[in-house]
């Protein structure tokens, strides 16, 4: 039988990464829709890594719940992952490391011997990719093309590596053919009639920001946000642009204060611990009205937490990261397209309302590669800051609304002040001034209500509302539920604060809003309840994303409980 959707899981150590890349790239070249997932231990080389490549003839939303094929490089990988194989799924295992009783659904390959045979002990990954290609009916040529591009690095050893990898592919395919085991192969690709790009979230975040005119970036390394720093360092080059590694996150955030004040469009990216360190500086940006974007790529928390696992537990902190009355705009992209357009929007929002904006990403997005329709950058309308051009003696903070911002070198010199201040920015703690300032700072948020949302089955009285990276598996769960005939709606937006115009009204009109999210406290449903929405969470805090099927079951249970009056949201 031919499948239209095929999931391969690799479980091993560092070598699985290239195997994943090779397979994904070959599949994409062949016209399939590809979606990868990876999860690492906090370690440099080695340690148990597992990855997944989903290959489909149609676009998919999630990484796939259960693999059709498991490639286990070691016993630990097999033991941990074979329970996840879908019934009838096949295992390819490294027979050099361990053995399995033959059951017609597994076959061993001594990948190390074969790699040695081609004279490249590191080619174990290509052996397995050869075997997989054979099993699921892929042409080896596409893998060879990937191999050629990847290893043409202008080094003497290039040719030998490319050749040996190609040979390893053939040996792997051979071994699979010999095994006698065969699994469903994948249906022919239906290549899209539009241009595609193969991208990761860091590419999209960087590009979106640049397309919106970003010209200043600093960052301190931290997993998984480092990728964005690295991307920026080599991409955002040229005159009047500045990209730099700082000595700490406290330096980063305060540097952005200075550069944003100086008229640049500024951004940094960090993860949980760095975000916590930026707390005081974010409060300053809010108070002094400095445009900036802070990307927070969530990992598992709290504290040093789980640096290489995914979680959605920084939401509370992003919404109000600092003491005092502050409430940050938060955009949480749910897929790679949204990383691009969300990032651009974050830059636009920051400039538009003259204050800090949080772009809330997460590990699961950060480790995903996908081939998507080439985004149309011309859809990004660049917004420029309202700059003051009048005479000196300007009352920067006199209005209760947004006002033009003077830029050093230009007219209207004022003091950007973290202490409560009068219309010139000078420190004053009179009651009337504090009331005025507070209204001004919160009032400006209303400029940001132009977010969009998507809604399906809007008539349903119960709706589900995932956020961020949970969008993908939740969308699959939604399709399952609708197929099962459950009357449930779908509401999704990446604009968590402020919500798009009209969104709150819709949400409040529901009898129940079910929020699947990857944290313990059910942070988004709690924030919705703050806003008087009858919301309840379905939570998971394992460091891994939801499985669509299980999620669908849990949602259905909650819907039933609600119908029986057991949930009094």
């Amino acid at each position: 039988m031919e499948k239209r959707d095929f999931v391969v899981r690799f479980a091993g150590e560092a070598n699985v990464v290239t195997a994943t890349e090779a397979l994904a790239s070959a599949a994409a070249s062949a016209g399939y829709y590809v979606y990868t997932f990876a999860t690492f231990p906090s370690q440099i080389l080695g340690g148990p890594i597992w990855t997944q490549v989903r290959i489909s003839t149609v676009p998919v939303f999630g990484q796939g719940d259960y693999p059709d094929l498991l490639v286990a490089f070691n016993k630990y990988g097999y033991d941990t992952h074979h329970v996840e194989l879908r019934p009838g799924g096949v295992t390819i295992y490294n027979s050099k490391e361990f053995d399995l009783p033959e059951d017609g659904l597994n076959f061993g390959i001594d990948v190390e011997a074969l790699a040695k045979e081609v004279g490249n002990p590191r080619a174990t990954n290509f052996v397995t990719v050869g075997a997989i290609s054979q099993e699921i009916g892929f042409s080896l040529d596409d893998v060879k093309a990937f191999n050629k591009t990847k290893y043409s690095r202008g080094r003497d050893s290039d040719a030998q590596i490319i050749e040996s990898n190609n040979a390893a592919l053939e040996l792997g395919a051979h071994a699979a053919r010999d095994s006698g085991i065969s699994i469903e192969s994948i249906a022919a690709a239906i290549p899209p009639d539009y241009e595609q790009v193969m991208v990761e979230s860091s590419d999209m975040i960087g590009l979106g920001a640049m397309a919106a005119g970003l010209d200043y970036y600093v960052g301190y390394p931290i997993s998984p946000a480092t990728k964005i720093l690295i991307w920026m360092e080599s991409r955002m080059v040229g005159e009047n642009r500045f990209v730099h590694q700082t000595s700490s996150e406290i330096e980063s955030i305060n540097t952005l204060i200075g550069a944003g004040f100086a008229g640049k469009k500024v951004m940094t990216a960090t993860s949980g611990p760095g975000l916590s360190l930026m707390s005081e500086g974010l409060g300053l940006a809010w108070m002094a009205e400095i445009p900036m974007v802070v990307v927070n790529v969530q990992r598992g928390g709290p504290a040093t937490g789980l640096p290489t696992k995914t979680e959605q537990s920084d939401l509370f902190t992003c919404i109000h990261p600092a003491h005092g009355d502050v409430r940050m705009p938060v955009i949480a992209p749910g897929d790679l397209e949204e990383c691009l357009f969300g990032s651009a929007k974050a830059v636009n929002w920051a400039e538009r309302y003259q204050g800090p904006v949080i772009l809330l990403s997460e590990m699961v997005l950060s480790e995903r590669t996908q081939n998507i329709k080439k985004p149309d950058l011309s859809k990004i309308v660049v917004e420029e800051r309202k700059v003051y051009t009048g005479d000196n003696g300007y009352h920067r903070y006199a209005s209760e609304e947004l006002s033009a911002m003077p830029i050093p070198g230009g007219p209207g010199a004022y003091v950007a002040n973290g202490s409560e201040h009068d219309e010139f920015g000078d420190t004053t703690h009179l009651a009337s001034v504090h009331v005025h300032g507070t209204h001004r700072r919160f009032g400006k948020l209303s400029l940001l209500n132009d977010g969009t949302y998507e809604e399906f089955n809007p008539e349903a009285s119960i709706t589900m509302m995932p956020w961020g990276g949970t969008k993908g598996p939740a969308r699959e769960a939604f399709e399952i539920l609708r197929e099962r005939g459950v009357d449930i709606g779908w509401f999704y937006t990446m604009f968590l604060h402020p919500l798009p115009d009209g969104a709150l009204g819709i949400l409040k009109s529901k009898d129940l809003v079910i929020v699947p999210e990857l944290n313990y406290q059910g942070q988004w449903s709690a924030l919705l309840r703050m806003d008087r929405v009858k919301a309840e969470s379905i939570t998971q805090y394992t460091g891994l994303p939801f499985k669509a099927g299980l999620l669908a079951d849990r949602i259905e249970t909650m819907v039933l409980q609600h119908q029986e009056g057991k949930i009094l949201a």
Partner: protein
Amino acid sequence: MTTKNSNYDFKWCPGCGDFGVRRAIEFALGGRNEKHETRMQDNVIVAGIGCSGNLVHLLESDEQPFGIHGIHGRTLPIALGVKSGSPNSNVIIVAGDGDFLSIGMEHIGPQAQRNLDVTAVIMDNGVYGLTKGQGSPTTKFGTVTSSTPFGKIEAALNPLSFYLEIGVSFIASHYSSKPRELAALIETAMEHKGFSIVHVQSPCTTYNDTYEQLKGNKRKGIDPGIIDLPEGYDPSDRAQAMAIIADGRVPLGVIYKEDRPTLNDQYVSLTGRAPATSSPDKILASYAI
């Protein structure tokens, strides 16, 4: 300075050393603007939190520079942002010994290593003024303050030798009672291409009045705590700088000066090796499959 709530504005205590520093900065800014044909709006003052930092609100000139009065201890990273974001601005930091050398001390090394082209005017009164008299890093060992009722336990930091060691490329020292001299020093510091610090003894008349120690008092047999640079002093000579700092008294003048490329220079020259500016469209195209 705001005119509207003048009754309510921050004011320094009578006799506070910061008055003199303010005058000096006003002179220096005036001088620099004249010399470079720049305007007040081409200058940005980044202020720390402390009595000292309030200087940014108390300038009396008609035309005002830009200012940032942020949070405690972060003048340097803020100045890094201003200067790298607006290379044509003249950036001056005003901060106290607590702000700059205690909570803010981590930021000095990185800026020295970058040779960030800004001028820091530090008002050292050996005390936390604004929080009413606690010990600071420059408070001497054993001193009784409100927070050290039995005497301070830490040895005092010597800011000048610290600046020298950590790689600050221009170091000057003075005190607040000679605004004209101080102004000249600050102007020289602003001319320096790179990270310059003018460390000023600026007595706190309310919590740590050191005027007498600085100026001396013949009648009481107190020798002046200040010292002029010796004839022929060469600020480019590190050894002489170390010697004058080791003297222990407050030297008046440019202690050390070294010419090195600034952050902005280096940035332009190193990233010059980068490929020609890529447009977002071109970058996107590189991801095609």
